[in-house]
């Protein structure tokens, strides 16, 4: 696992990576630099959690708008990218909640009628893993993506999920166990 640098990006301290200048809270130029450095990583997490690229892009942009508003209050001791992930995951959880409410409303509206067949184009786009991740709770799916795709440490994952660091390992174990079940005991 790679240690966290002051910019909050684990990737920036990988062997051979240049040491980035630390961010300054409230600086618009630094926030634009943070956006360029972390947008694709935040987007990757959101695609893993939501399973829908368009929704993930929308969430990512909304998260950066919220983060920009809160940027003057960011503290340098908090890893910047994990801080962004935390905001983005909250936006994603809210979106999922709204989607579930909408789905429940549609279910009530079409009571007694057969459900429409799934869109074959969308079905082909989603792999077995993507479908399983989508069925996990948002924060469990995020923990999987942050650890196994971004290589985040327990501390970064704890900050991104807003949980104590000592509970990260148990959360990850629970998420993986559920994922294995969903993948058919792989």
């Amino acid at each position, binding site marked *: 696992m790679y240690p966290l640098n002051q910019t909050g990006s684990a990737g920036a301290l990988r062997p051979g990576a240049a040491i980035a200048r630390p961010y300054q809270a409230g600086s618009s130029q630094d926030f634009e630099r943070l956006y360029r450095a972390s947008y694709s990583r935040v987007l990757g997490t959101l695609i893993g959690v939501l399973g829908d690229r368009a929704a993930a892009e929308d969430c990512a942009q909304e998260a950066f708008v919220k983060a*920009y508003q809160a940027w003057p209050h960011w503290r340098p001791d908090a890893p910047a990218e994990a801080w962004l992930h935390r905001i983005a995951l909250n936006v994603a959880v809210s979106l999922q909640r709204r989607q579930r409410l909408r789905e429940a409303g549609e279910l009530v509206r079409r009571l007694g009628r057969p459900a429409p067949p799934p869109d074959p184009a969308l079905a082909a786009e989603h792999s077995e893993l993507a479908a399983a991740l989508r069925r996990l709770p948002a924060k469990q799916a995020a923990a999987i993506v942050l650890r*196994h795709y971004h290589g985040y440490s327990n501390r970064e994952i704890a900050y991104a999920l807003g949980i104590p660091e000592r509970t990260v390992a148990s959360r990850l174990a629970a998420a993986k166990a559920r994922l294995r079940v969903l993948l058919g005991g792989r």
Partner: protein
Amino acid sequence: MAREEGNFDVWLSAELRRELSPHSLRPAPAPRFLFQRRRRRRRLPLLAGPPAALGVKAATGLCVTAFAVVATGAAVTGSPNPAVWGAHVRTAVADCKSALDRGQRGWGDCVSTVAGQVQPDAPAPVIEAPAGTNAQAPSVQATADLKKSAPNGKTRPVRSVPTPDSENQREPGRDGSG
């Protein structure tokens, strides 16, 4: 078991890279927060510019006009309630009618004089009358006084309010005693 777990972790990482890396390779689009920041800046001059100043002036004018109307009505009648203003005018008209003999014309001038009273310090006879007395009597006297002092000289001679005493004084003459 540990080996299985390790295999699963390796498989999971490889699958996630395969799924998510193509999305991550695309360049970041134009940031939305920049547009929001610019839009906010554009709003501020509108709030502080000439339209805002005109709006404030219009609102101030409306407030002053409304206050003037209420203050005038309240000064004349002694009450801020517009219903009282209407009652005041009705009372004045009734007084003007009763000040003349039945069938006699010309109470329009009397009403005009009452309607023209806009002096803030003008007494409000209807309101100021003590309770239990005829509130119309003082206003009739005031109307008669105003008519007497009219400067254009076009006013007709004003009869005083008939009282039982004056009626008694006239009666003997009408009987042919004078």
